[in-house]
Protein backbone atom coordinates (compact mmCIF):
# COMPACT_ATOMS: atom_id res chain seq x y z
CA UNK A 1 0.00 0.00 0.00
CA UNK A 2 1.24 3.54 -0.74
CA UNK A 3 2.43 5.47 2.28
CA UNK A 4 1.38 9.08 2.72
CA UNK A 5 3.94 11.63 1.54
CA UNK A 6 5.01 12.45 5.09
CA UNK A 7 4.77 9.07 6.74
CA UNK A 8 7.59 9.00 9.28
CA UNK A 9 7.18 10.54 12.71
CA UNK A 10 8.59 10.33 16.19
CA UNK A 11 5.73 9.73 18.59
CA UNK A 12 5.62 12.01 21.62
CA UNK A 13 3.55 10.38 24.39
CA UNK A 14 3.79 12.99 27.17
CA UNK A 15 2.81 12.23 30.78
CA UNK A 16 -0.80 11.08 30.67
CA UNK A 17 -1.09 8.84 27.60
CA UNK A 18 1.50 6.15 28.48
CA UNK A 19 0.05 5.71 32.00
CA UNK A 20 -3.65 6.59 31.90
CA UNK A 21 -4.65 6.33 28.25
CA UNK A 22 -3.16 3.11 26.94
CA UNK A 23 -6.32 2.61 24.86
CA UNK A 24 -5.53 5.85 22.98
CA UNK A 25 -1.94 4.77 22.38
CA UNK A 26 -2.84 1.20 21.38
CA UNK A 27 -5.53 2.33 18.91
CA UNK A 28 -3.38 5.13 17.48
CA UNK A 29 -0.51 2.75 16.77
CA UNK A 30 -2.89 0.20 15.20
CA UNK A 31 -4.58 2.63 12.82
CA UNK A 32 -1.27 4.34 11.99
CA UNK A 33 0.24 1.05 10.86
CA UNK A 34 -2.82 0.16 8.79
CA UNK A 35 -2.73 3.57 7.06
CA UNK A 36 0.98 3.43 6.27
CA UNK A 37 2.29 5.80 8.95
CA UNK A 38 5.52 4.84 10.69
CA UNK A 39 5.79 5.98 14.29
CA UNK A 40 9.09 5.59 16.11
CA UNK A 41 9.75 6.06 19.81
CA UNK A 42 12.25 7.74 22.09
CA UNK A 43 12.15 6.53 25.71
CA UNK A 44 14.05 9.63 26.88
CA UNK A 45 11.26 12.14 26.27
CA UNK A 46 9.98 13.79 29.44
CA UNK A 47 7.00 16.02 30.20
CA UNK A 48 6.53 18.60 27.42
CA UNK A 49 6.90 21.50 29.86
CA UNK A 50 3.29 22.70 29.82
CA UNK A 51 2.60 22.36 33.58
CA UNK A 52 5.48 24.67 34.48
CA UNK A 53 4.62 27.44 32.00
CA UNK A 54 2.46 29.29 34.50
CA UNK A 55 5.17 29.06 37.17
CA UNK A 56 8.38 29.74 35.28
CA UNK A 57 8.23 30.42 31.56
CA UNK A 58 11.94 29.94 30.97
CA UNK A 59 11.88 26.50 32.64
CA UNK A 60 9.01 25.57 30.32
CA UNK A 61 11.01 26.62 27.27
CA UNK A 62 14.02 24.60 28.47
CA UNK A 63 11.94 21.47 29.04
CA UNK A 64 10.29 21.82 25.63
CA UNK A 65 13.66 22.51 24.00
CA UNK A 66 15.13 19.38 25.56
CA UNK A 67 12.41 17.26 23.95
CA UNK A 68 12.75 19.09 20.63
CA UNK A 69 16.54 18.54 20.72
CA UNK A 70 16.04 14.80 21.25
CA UNK A 71 13.58 14.74 18.34
CA UNK A 72 16.02 16.68 16.16
CA UNK A 73 18.64 13.97 16.70
CA UNK A 74 16.23 11.49 15.10
CA UNK A 75 15.53 13.95 12.30
CA UNK A 76 11.79 13.24 12.09
CA UNK A 77 8.80 15.50 12.77
CA UNK A 78 7.28 15.09 16.21
CA UNK A 79 3.74 13.79 16.47
CA UNK A 80 1.79 14.07 19.72
CA UNK A 81 -1.35 12.33 20.96
CA UNK A 82 -2.02 14.90 23.69
CA UNK A 83 -3.29 18.28 22.51
CA UNK A 84 -1.66 20.15 25.40
CA UNK A 85 1.72 18.63 24.47
CA UNK A 86 1.08 19.68 20.88
CA UNK A 87 0.30 23.27 21.86
CA UNK A 88 3.15 23.52 24.30
CA UNK A 89 5.82 22.08 21.98
CA UNK A 90 4.51 23.98 18.93
CA UNK A 91 4.59 27.30 20.77
CA UNK A 92 8.09 26.74 22.17
CA UNK A 93 9.24 25.57 18.74
CA UNK A 94 7.96 28.74 17.05
CA UNK A 95 9.60 30.93 19.64
CA UNK A 96 12.94 29.13 19.40
CA UNK A 97 12.85 29.15 15.62
CA UNK A 98 12.00 32.82 15.34
CA UNK A 99 13.98 34.35 18.22
CA UNK A 100 17.65 33.69 17.60
CA UNK A 101 18.76 35.43 20.78
CA UNK A 102 16.44 33.29 22.89
CA UNK A 103 17.55 30.10 21.13
CA UNK A 104 21.20 30.98 21.83
CA UNK A 105 20.48 31.54 25.51
CA UNK A 106 18.43 28.34 25.81
CA UNK A 107 21.10 26.33 24.01
CA UNK A 108 23.87 27.63 26.26
CA UNK A 109 21.99 26.44 29.34
CA UNK A 110 20.71 23.25 27.73
CA UNK A 111 24.19 22.25 26.59
CA UNK A 112 25.86 23.06 29.87
CA UNK A 113 23.24 21.32 31.98
CA UNK A 114 22.19 18.29 29.91
CA UNK A 115 24.50 18.25 26.89
CA UNK A 116 21.88 19.02 24.22
CA UNK A 117 21.27 21.71 21.62
CA UNK A 118 18.25 22.51 19.50
CA UNK A 119 18.84 24.17 16.12
CA UNK A 120 15.18 24.69 15.23
CA UNK A 121 14.85 22.02 12.57
CA UNK A 122 11.85 20.05 13.79
CA UNK A 123 8.16 20.25 12.91
CA UNK A 124 5.56 19.49 15.60
CA UNK A 125 2.11 18.17 14.83
CA UNK A 126 -0.83 16.26 16.32
CA UNK A 127 -1.69 12.68 15.35
CA UNK A 128 -5.20 13.71 14.29
CA UNK A 129 -3.76 16.54 12.18
CA UNK A 130 -1.60 13.95 10.43
CA UNK A 131 -4.69 11.82 9.76
CA UNK A 132 -6.50 14.87 8.41
CA UNK A 133 -3.72 16.44 6.35
CA UNK A 134 -1.25 13.71 5.43
CA UNK A 135 -3.39 10.57 5.23
CA UNK A 136 -6.54 12.41 4.22
CA UNK A 137 -10.22 11.52 4.28
CA UNK A 138 -10.17 9.87 0.88
CA UNK A 139 -7.65 7.25 1.89
CA UNK A 140 -9.57 6.57 5.10
CA UNK A 141 -12.85 6.18 3.21
CA UNK A 142 -11.15 3.73 0.83
CA UNK A 143 -10.01 1.61 3.78
CA UNK A 144 -13.32 1.45 5.69
CA UNK A 145 -14.50 -2.14 6.17
CA UNK A 146 -17.29 -1.84 8.72
CA UNK A 147 -20.47 0.20 8.35
CA UNK A 148 -20.66 2.68 11.23
CA UNK A 149 -23.57 4.69 9.82
CA UNK A 150 -25.81 3.71 12.74
CA UNK A 151 -23.56 5.61 15.17
CA UNK A 152 -24.21 9.23 16.13
CA UNK A 153 -21.08 10.51 17.78
CA UNK A 154 -20.15 13.95 19.06
CA UNK A 155 -16.80 15.51 18.18
CA UNK A 156 -15.01 17.34 20.99
CA UNK A 157 -12.08 19.33 19.60
CA UNK A 158 -10.75 20.57 22.92
CA UNK A 159 -8.66 23.71 22.99
CA UNK A 160 -5.01 23.13 22.28
CA UNK A 161 -5.52 21.25 19.03
CA UNK A 162 -6.66 24.47 17.35
CA UNK A 163 -5.79 27.37 19.68
CA UNK A 164 -4.00 29.71 19.87
CA UNK A 165 -4.44 29.71 16.09
CA UNK A 166 -1.34 31.92 15.69
CA UNK A 167 1.04 29.08 16.64
CA UNK A 168 -0.70 26.76 14.16
CA UNK A 169 -0.56 29.32 11.35
CA UNK A 170 -4.36 29.32 11.43
CA UNK A 171 -4.49 25.77 10.04
CA UNK A 172 -8.22 25.91 10.70
CA UNK A 173 -10.76 28.46 11.86
CA UNK A 174 -10.71 28.40 15.70
CA UNK A 175 -14.39 29.39 15.80
CA UNK A 176 -15.46 26.80 13.26
CA UNK A 177 -13.05 23.88 13.00
CA UNK A 178 -14.00 21.02 10.70
CA UNK A 179 -11.18 18.47 10.69
CA UNK A 180 -12.56 16.17 13.39
CA UNK A 181 -16.10 16.36 11.98
CA UNK A 182 -14.72 15.38 8.59
CA UNK A 183 -12.62 12.57 10.01
CA UNK A 184 -15.68 11.21 11.84
CA UNK A 185 -17.73 11.34 8.63
CA UNK A 186 -14.88 9.53 6.82
CA UNK A 187 -15.44 6.53 9.14
CA UNK A 188 -19.10 6.45 8.08
CA UNK A 189 -20.42 7.55 11.50
CA UNK A 190 -22.67 10.61 11.87
CA UNK A 191 -21.10 13.71 13.49
CA UNK A 192 -23.60 15.09 16.02
CA UNK A 193 -23.83 18.87 16.41
CA UNK A 194 -24.52 20.26 19.88
CA UNK A 195 -24.57 23.43 21.97
CA UNK A 196 -21.18 24.78 23.08
CA UNK A 197 -19.36 22.30 20.87
CA UNK A 198 -16.07 24.17 21.23
CA UNK A 199 -16.28 24.61 25.00
CA UNK A 200 -13.25 23.73 27.13
CA UNK A 201 -13.38 20.50 29.21
CA UNK A 202 -12.16 22.24 32.36
CA UNK A 203 -9.09 20.02 32.73
CA UNK A 204 -6.83 23.06 33.01
CA UNK A 205 -8.30 24.05 36.37
CA UNK A 206 -8.84 20.55 37.81
CA UNK A 207 -5.81 20.74 40.11
CA UNK A 208 -6.74 24.23 41.27
CA UNK A 209 -10.50 23.94 41.78
CA UNK A 210 -12.13 20.58 41.19
CA UNK A 211 -15.70 21.86 41.56
CA UNK A 212 -15.20 24.46 38.83
CA UNK A 213 -13.66 21.88 36.51
CA UNK A 214 -16.47 19.38 37.13
CA UNK A 215 -19.11 22.05 36.56
CA UNK A 216 -17.54 22.86 33.19
CA UNK A 217 -17.53 19.22 32.07
CA UNK A 218 -21.07 18.73 33.42
CA UNK A 219 -22.44 21.42 31.10
CA UNK A 220 -21.10 19.70 28.02
CA UNK A 221 -22.28 16.25 29.09
CA UNK A 222 -25.76 17.75 29.47
CA UNK A 223 -25.64 19.20 25.97
CA UNK A 224 -24.56 15.85 24.55
CA UNK A 225 -27.37 14.01 26.28
CA UNK A 226 -29.83 16.51 24.83
CA UNK A 227 -28.72 15.40 21.35
CA UNK A 228 -28.84 11.71 22.31
CA UNK A 229 -25.28 11.13 21.16
CA UNK A 230 -24.12 7.48 21.24
CA UNK A 231 -20.61 8.52 22.23
CA UNK A 232 -18.24 11.42 22.55
CA UNK A 233 -15.09 11.46 20.41
CA UNK A 234 -11.90 12.90 21.91
CA UNK A 235 -8.38 13.59 20.75
CA UNK A 236 -6.75 14.58 24.05
CA UNK A 237 -6.13 12.47 27.20
CA UNK A 238 -6.78 15.45 29.44
CA UNK A 239 -10.27 15.95 28.06
CA UNK A 240 -10.75 12.26 28.79
CA UNK A 241 -9.85 12.76 32.44
CA UNK A 242 -12.80 15.17 32.62
CA UNK A 243 -15.45 13.44 30.53
CA UNK A 244 -14.74 9.78 31.18
CA UNK A 245 -12.48 9.64 34.25
CA UNK A 246 -14.74 12.02 36.16
CA UNK A 247 -18.07 11.09 34.62
CA UNK A 248 -19.21 9.07 37.66
CA UNK A 249 -18.21 11.87 40.00
CA UNK A 250 -20.12 14.41 37.90
CA UNK A 251 -23.17 12.13 37.89
CA UNK A 252 -22.98 11.92 41.67
CA UNK A 253 -22.31 15.62 42.30
CA UNK A 254 -25.05 16.82 39.98
CA UNK A 255 -27.44 13.93 40.67
CA UNK A 256 -27.81 12.86 37.10
CA UNK A 257 -26.88 9.97 34.84
CA UNK A 258 -25.12 9.91 31.48
CA UNK A 259 -23.37 6.55 30.99
CA UNK A 260 -21.99 8.18 27.87
CA UNK A 261 -19.21 6.17 26.19
CA UNK A 262 -16.13 8.25 25.45
CA UNK A 263 -13.90 7.08 22.61
CA UNK A 264 -10.62 8.37 21.31
CA UNK A 265 -10.86 9.11 17.60
CA UNK A 266 -8.39 6.32 16.67
CA UNK A 267 -10.71 3.84 18.44
CA UNK A 268 -13.65 4.92 16.27
CA UNK A 269 -11.47 4.86 13.17
CA UNK A 270 -10.13 1.44 14.19
CA UNK A 271 -13.66 0.02 14.40
CA UNK A 272 -14.36 1.31 10.89
CA UNK A 273 -11.12 -0.20 9.61
CA UNK A 274 -12.26 -3.60 10.87
CA UNK A 275 -10.31 -3.97 14.10
CA UNK A 276 -12.12 -5.67 16.97
CA UNK A 277 -12.93 -3.67 20.13
CA UNK A 278 -10.32 -5.64 22.12
CA UNK A 279 -7.61 -4.82 19.61
CA UNK A 280 -8.38 -1.13 20.18
CA UNK A 281 -8.08 -1.30 23.95
CA UNK A 282 -11.81 -0.76 24.44
CA UNK A 283 -11.84 -2.96 27.53
CA UNK A 284 -9.93 -0.10 29.16
CA UNK A 285 -12.69 2.41 28.46
CA UNK A 286 -14.20 3.18 31.83
CA UNK A 287 -17.70 3.80 30.53
CA UNK A 288 -18.80 0.53 28.94
CA UNK A 289 -18.94 0.48 25.16
CA UNK A 290 -20.89 -2.80 24.89
CA UNK A 291 -24.13 -1.17 23.69
CA UNK A 292 -22.24 0.92 21.18
CA UNK A 293 -20.56 -2.13 19.68
CA UNK A 294 -23.89 -4.00 19.62
CA UNK A 295 -25.41 -1.11 17.69
CA UNK A 296 -22.72 -1.46 15.01
CA UNK A 297 -23.17 -5.23 14.82
CA UNK A 298 -26.97 -4.98 14.57
CA UNK A 299 -26.43 -2.83 11.53
CA UNK A 300 -23.90 -5.28 10.11
CA UNK A 301 -26.31 -8.21 10.55
Amino acid at each position, binding site marked *: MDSPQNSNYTLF*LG*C*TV*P*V*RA*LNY*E*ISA*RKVAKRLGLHLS*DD*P*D*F*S*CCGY*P*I*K*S*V*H*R*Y*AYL*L*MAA*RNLALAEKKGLPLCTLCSACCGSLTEANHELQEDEKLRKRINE*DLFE*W*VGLRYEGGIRVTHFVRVLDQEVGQKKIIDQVQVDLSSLHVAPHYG*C*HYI*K*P*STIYNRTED*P*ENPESLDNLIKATGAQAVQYEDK*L*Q*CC*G*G*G*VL*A*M*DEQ*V*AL*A*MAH*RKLDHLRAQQADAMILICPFCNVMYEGNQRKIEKNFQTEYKLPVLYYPQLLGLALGFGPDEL*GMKMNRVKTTELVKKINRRAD
Partner: protein
Amino acid sequence: MIDSKTFDPNFKILIASEPGGENIKKCFSCGTCTAGCPVREVTDHYNPRRIIRMAILGLKKEVLSSDFIWLCSSCYTCFERCPQNVKIPELMNAIKNIAVREGYLPSSIKSQLDLLASFGRLLEITDFENEKRKESNLPLLCGKTEDVKKILEKLGFHREEQNSG
Protein backbone atom coordinates in the same frame (compact mmCIF):
# COMPACT_ATOMS: atom_id res chain seq x y z
CA MET B 1 -13.60 50.36 49.79
CA ILE B 2 -10.29 50.57 47.91
CA ASP B 3 -7.78 53.22 49.00
CA SER B 4 -6.19 54.66 45.87
CA LYS B 5 -3.07 55.53 47.88
CA THR B 6 -2.24 51.83 47.98
CA PHE B 7 -2.20 51.55 44.17
CA ASP B 8 1.14 50.64 42.66
CA PRO B 9 1.37 52.45 39.29
CA ASN B 10 4.43 50.40 38.37
CA PHE B 11 2.59 47.08 38.54
CA LYS B 12 1.33 47.30 34.95
CA ILE B 13 4.85 48.23 33.81
CA LEU B 14 6.26 45.22 35.64
CA ILE B 15 3.68 42.99 33.95
CA ALA B 16 4.37 44.54 30.54
CA SER B 17 8.06 43.70 30.91
CA GLU B 18 7.27 40.03 31.59
CA PRO B 19 7.10 37.69 28.54
CA GLY B 20 3.41 37.33 27.66
CA GLY B 21 2.34 40.48 29.51
CA GLU B 22 3.50 42.99 26.87
CA ASN B 23 0.04 44.09 25.73
CA ILE B 24 -1.67 44.67 29.08
CA LYS B 25 -1.92 48.43 28.61
CA LYS B 26 -3.84 47.99 25.36
CA CYS B 27 -6.87 46.62 27.25
CA PHE B 28 -9.88 48.95 27.01
CA SER B 29 -12.10 46.75 29.21
CA CYS B 30 -14.61 45.76 26.54
CA GLY B 31 -15.29 42.46 28.34
CA THR B 32 -15.16 40.19 25.29
CA CYS B 33 -12.86 37.90 27.29
CA THR B 34 -15.27 37.57 30.19
CA ALA B 35 -18.33 37.16 27.95
CA GLY B 36 -16.88 34.09 26.24
CA CYS B 37 -14.99 32.62 29.20
CA PRO B 38 -16.04 29.02 30.02
CA VAL B 39 -14.73 29.32 33.58
CA ARG B 40 -16.67 32.53 34.18
CA GLU B 41 -19.74 30.68 32.99
CA VAL B 42 -19.65 28.39 36.02
CA THR B 43 -18.10 30.64 38.69
CA ASP B 44 -18.08 34.34 39.59
CA HIS B 45 -14.67 33.90 41.11
CA TYR B 46 -12.84 34.22 37.80
CA ASN B 47 -13.37 37.33 35.70
CA PRO B 48 -10.53 38.20 33.31
CA ARG B 49 -11.73 41.74 32.59
CA ARG B 50 -11.82 42.45 36.32
CA ILE B 51 -8.37 40.97 36.92
CA ILE B 52 -6.84 43.04 34.10
CA ARG B 53 -8.56 46.18 35.43
CA MET B 54 -7.21 45.48 38.93
CA ALA B 55 -3.72 44.98 37.52
CA ILE B 56 -3.82 48.21 35.50
CA LEU B 57 -5.07 50.13 38.55
CA GLY B 58 -2.08 48.80 40.48
CA LEU B 59 -3.74 46.47 42.99
CA LYS B 60 -0.55 44.46 43.07
CA LYS B 61 -0.87 42.52 46.31
CA GLU B 62 -4.58 41.76 45.77
CA VAL B 63 -3.86 40.33 42.33
CA LEU B 64 -0.66 38.42 43.11
CA SER B 65 -1.95 36.85 46.31
CA SER B 66 -5.31 35.84 44.82
CA ASP B 67 -6.42 32.33 43.88
CA PHE B 68 -8.35 33.64 40.90
CA ILE B 69 -5.31 34.27 38.69
CA TRP B 70 -4.80 30.48 38.79
CA LEU B 71 -8.32 29.77 37.50
CA CYS B 72 -7.68 30.50 33.81
CA SER B 73 -8.18 27.16 32.04
CA SER B 74 -5.92 28.25 29.14
CA CYS B 75 -8.60 27.47 26.58
CA TYR B 76 -7.53 30.49 24.48
CA THR B 77 -11.09 31.46 23.56
CA CYS B 78 -10.42 35.05 24.72
CA PHE B 79 -7.00 35.01 23.03
CA GLU B 80 -8.73 34.48 19.69
CA ARG B 81 -11.44 37.09 20.29
CA CYS B 82 -9.70 39.97 22.07
CA PRO B 83 -9.92 43.03 19.77
CA GLN B 84 -6.79 44.50 21.36
CA ASN B 85 -4.62 41.38 21.16
CA VAL B 86 -4.02 41.41 24.91
CA LYS B 87 -3.26 37.66 24.73
CA ILE B 88 -5.05 37.08 28.03
CA PRO B 89 -3.94 33.48 28.80
CA GLU B 90 -0.31 34.56 28.24
CA LEU B 91 -0.95 37.67 30.33
CA MET B 92 -2.30 35.48 33.14
CA ASN B 93 0.82 33.33 32.88
CA ALA B 94 3.00 36.46 33.12
CA ILE B 95 1.14 37.52 36.26
CA LYS B 96 1.45 34.01 37.72
CA ASN B 97 5.20 33.96 36.98
CA ILE B 98 5.52 37.22 38.94
CA ALA B 99 3.31 35.87 41.74
CA VAL B 100 5.56 32.82 42.13
CA ARG B 101 8.66 35.03 42.34
CA GLU B 102 6.88 37.05 45.05
CA GLY B 103 6.26 33.86 47.01
CA TYR B 104 2.68 33.04 46.04
CA LEU B 105 2.60 29.45 44.79
CA PRO B 106 -0.61 27.43 45.34
CA SER B 107 0.05 24.07 46.99
CA SER B 108 -1.57 22.07 44.17
CA ILE B 109 0.79 23.66 41.65
CA LYS B 110 3.73 23.09 43.99
CA SER B 111 2.83 19.38 44.07
CA GLN B 112 3.00 19.26 40.27
CA LEU B 113 6.47 20.82 40.34
CA ASP B 114 7.61 18.25 42.87
CA LEU B 115 6.38 15.45 40.61
CA LEU B 116 8.22 16.94 37.63
CA ALA B 117 11.42 17.30 39.64
CA SER B 118 11.16 13.70 40.89
CA PHE B 119 10.08 11.86 37.76
CA GLY B 120 10.50 14.28 34.85
CA ARG B 121 6.79 13.67 34.31
CA LEU B 122 3.51 14.34 36.07
CA LEU B 123 2.94 10.59 36.44
CA GLU B 124 5.64 8.20 37.55
CA ILE B 125 6.60 5.25 35.34
CA THR B 126 7.17 2.30 37.66
CA ASP B 127 7.63 -1.41 36.95
CA PHE B 128 3.87 -1.72 37.33
CA GLU B 129 3.25 0.71 34.45
CA ASN B 130 5.85 -0.97 32.29
CA GLU B 131 4.34 -4.39 33.05
CA LYS B 132 0.97 -3.10 31.87
CA ARG B 133 2.61 -1.66 28.76
CA LYS B 134 4.36 -4.95 28.07
CA GLU B 135 1.07 -6.84 28.29
CA SER B 136 -0.34 -4.46 25.68
CA ASN B 137 2.71 -4.84 23.41
CA LEU B 138 3.70 -1.22 23.93
CA PRO B 139 7.35 -0.13 24.12
CA LEU B 140 8.73 0.20 27.65
CA LEU B 141 9.65 3.59 29.04
CA CYS B 142 12.69 4.38 31.13
CA GLY B 143 13.65 7.95 30.51
CA LYS B 144 16.42 10.18 31.72
CA THR B 145 14.45 11.94 34.39
CA GLU B 146 17.72 13.26 35.80
CA ASP B 147 17.79 15.87 33.01
CA VAL B 148 14.55 17.50 34.11
CA LYS B 149 15.60 17.38 37.74
CA LYS B 150 18.84 19.11 36.84
CA ILE B 151 17.11 21.83 34.78
CA LEU B 152 14.69 22.56 37.62
CA GLU B 153 17.44 22.54 40.25
CA LYS B 154 19.56 24.94 38.21
CA LEU B 155 16.60 27.31 38.06
CA GLY B 156 16.07 27.13 41.81
CA PHE B 157 13.23 24.61 42.07
CA HIS B 158 14.31 22.19 44.77
CA ARG B 159 12.14 19.80 46.62
CA GLU B 160 12.26 21.91 49.76
CA GLU B 161 9.20 20.36 51.36
CA GLN B 162 10.64 16.89 51.23
CA ASN B 163 13.98 18.00 52.64
CA SER B 164 12.37 19.72 55.55
CA GLY B 165 10.10 16.74 56.10
